[in-house]
């Protein structure tokens, strides 16, 4: 499949290069709408920081405005973008457009965009009054496919090819550090310091793809679940057990690895003793940026997984 696609995308990127900025073409979005978009967009708006702004910026798309979130003290920020790309609202010209569920349409119109990305179908109608709007929900695609879709939509296929090649080179190097024949299970979980809920993931964007590329598997009980993520009752905490368990820190400044651990203690007193991975010190805390949806997040996950798992003595789960 790839051998077929590669020449095709190269051909496409050549077309992109020769086209001038005002030319348009037809792109089909996730809802099957045929949208007339600029061949290479120059003023782009994004409705979701973590799922759209991050990958688009990485592809070199000029983002003029992005929705984001508010920190507890009211300052706006873009989730995972500064951590992975070093770009923030403060150090760039990206305008804050409100929270990702309630956009300030007038501010968007004032920025005179030529292309808008949203991952919420119901926002397409109001946004398309301003500029061509594409509904693409990256959650529906594995990261590499989603990046390709976005690159195609924004006319940045050459940059996509470069990023993909970098990643694949890195992957081939790193893959050698993992034992070939051993079947290692790694589960992915998330919890807050408050310790009210614990989530398990069957699909968590870049991390899931990196695990897959390295030949690491999710534990069977989790693979059996259909939802992308589900909340786990403390009584069933052993569902998430595996050779290794990954959890996250840094969702907010006050949520360090220690606080997340303490939260799990509230969730289930003496939780660590119930999990093989934790009891054998095979529970790992990743930075929240690993949640990102981009090649940089993929590479970060490759590095983290290699550092923590490859070439290490560990007690396999019985």
């Amino acid at each position, binding site marked *: 499949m790839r051998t077929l696609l590669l020449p095709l995308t190269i051909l496409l990127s050549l077309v992109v290069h020769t086209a001038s900025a005002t030319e348009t073409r037809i792109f089909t979005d996730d809802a099957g709408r045929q949208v007339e978009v600029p061949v290479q967009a120059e003023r782009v708006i994004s409705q979701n920081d973590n799922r759209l702004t991050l990958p688009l910026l990485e592809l070199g798309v000029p983002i003029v405005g992005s929705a984001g979130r508010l920190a507890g003290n009211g300052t706006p920020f873009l989730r995972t973008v500064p951590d992975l790309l070093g770009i923030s609202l403060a150090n760039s010209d990206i305008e804050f457009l409100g929270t990702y569920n309630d956009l300030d349409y007038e501010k968007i119109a004032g920025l005179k965009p030529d292309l808008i990305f949203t991952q919420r179908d119901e926002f397409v109608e109001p946004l398309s009054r301003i500029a061509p709007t594409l509904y693409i929900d990256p959650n529906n695609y594995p990261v590499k496919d989603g990046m390709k879709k976005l690159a195609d939509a924004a006319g940045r296929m050459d940059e996509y090819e470069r990023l993909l090649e970098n990643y694949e080179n890195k992957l081939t190097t790193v893959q050698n550090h993992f034992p070939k024949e051993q079947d290692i299970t790694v589960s992915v979980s998330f919890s807050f310091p408050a310790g009210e809920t614990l989530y398990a993931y069957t699909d968590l964007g870049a991390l899931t793809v990196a695990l897959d590329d390295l030949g690491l598997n999710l534990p069977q009980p989790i693979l059996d679940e259909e939802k992308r993520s589900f909340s786990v009752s403390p009584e069933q905490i052993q569902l998430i057990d595996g050779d290794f368990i990954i959890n996250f820190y840094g969702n907010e400044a*006050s949520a360090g690895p220690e606080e997340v651990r303490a939260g799990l203690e509230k969730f*289930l007193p003496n939780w660590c003793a*119930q999990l093989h991975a934790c009891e054998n010190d095979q529970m790992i805390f990743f930075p929240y940026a690993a949640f990102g949806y981009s090649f940089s997040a993929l590479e970060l996950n490759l590095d983290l997984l290699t550092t923590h798992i490859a070439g290490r003595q560990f007690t396999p789960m019985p």
Partner: protein
Amino acid sequence: MTIQKFGEVGRLGLMAVVISLFFALHISIGAKAIPLSDVFTALIARDETVFDHIVVWNLRMPRALIAMVVGAALAVSGALMQGLTRNPLADPGLLGLLAGASFAVVVGFGIWGSAIVPIMPLVAAGGALAASALVFWIASSAPGGARPLTLILAGAAITAFLGAIIAAVQLLDQDNFDQLRVWLTGTINGNRMSYMMWCLPWLLVGFLVSFAVARQITSLAMGDEVAIGLGVNVAQVKILSLIAVVALTASAVTLSGPLGFIGLVIPHAVRLFVGTDYRFVVPYSALVGAAYLLFVDIVARIALAPIEISTGLVTSLLGAPFFVWLVRAKL
């Protein structure tokens, strides 16, 4: 009012049997399927290394205990409020106390984060007190004074107002709000046991004061004049009852979030069996409230298993029709 010794013992025995039955049922079911025999083994021969025993002892027992305590606390505070306001429709939820307490907790959590836990009952009490003061002030400023309708409308107004502000916070700070989303619908969770030690003094004060003022509430329920005629210090009883109501409601909210209608339903049910003497209404409300919330929590866990519905939704779904029936029957 004399109650036959045998009848009293019989009733207490019945309650003890009902509560033990619900308790046993409560700890036998849950997200993880544990055979009854294992639950029994866990109870008689506890082994800290067996996870099933930990589930029974550290998750289900605390949850059952919290359900009982919260059910008793809300039922007693409902009984006191009904007697004190001579209003058959009084309830900590309907009169805005639960909304005030939860709002205070949400705000406190937003500002101080997890550091708020030790003073959470205090913060909740502040919210409940402020909300109840506001509701009573509004209702008693209305022409005709604090009647059932004005009290409930004032309660509804305060609840709507605080609800709108919470909704705004929720829209603005989605990421962090997720962790409070389930709690705000009222949920019983064994891991809140760690909060119990902070709530215990409040609960003790609340229950003791309630039992102490029960006799005077009976006279008060017949009208302030009657009570004064019987030598009751009306102002003192009212203040003490308010302290009890606020302390009990705040502890309940801290432990489980807002659980509506328990304070309304239970005292009415209790009065059907023990009459209007609050010396009986108050303690029986505590017992029946404990049994009722155990029952509701069982329903919440098996109705849509393996999904656990939050308990507050079940108390509302069961309690609201009762409220409607009460309106139809009593007014």
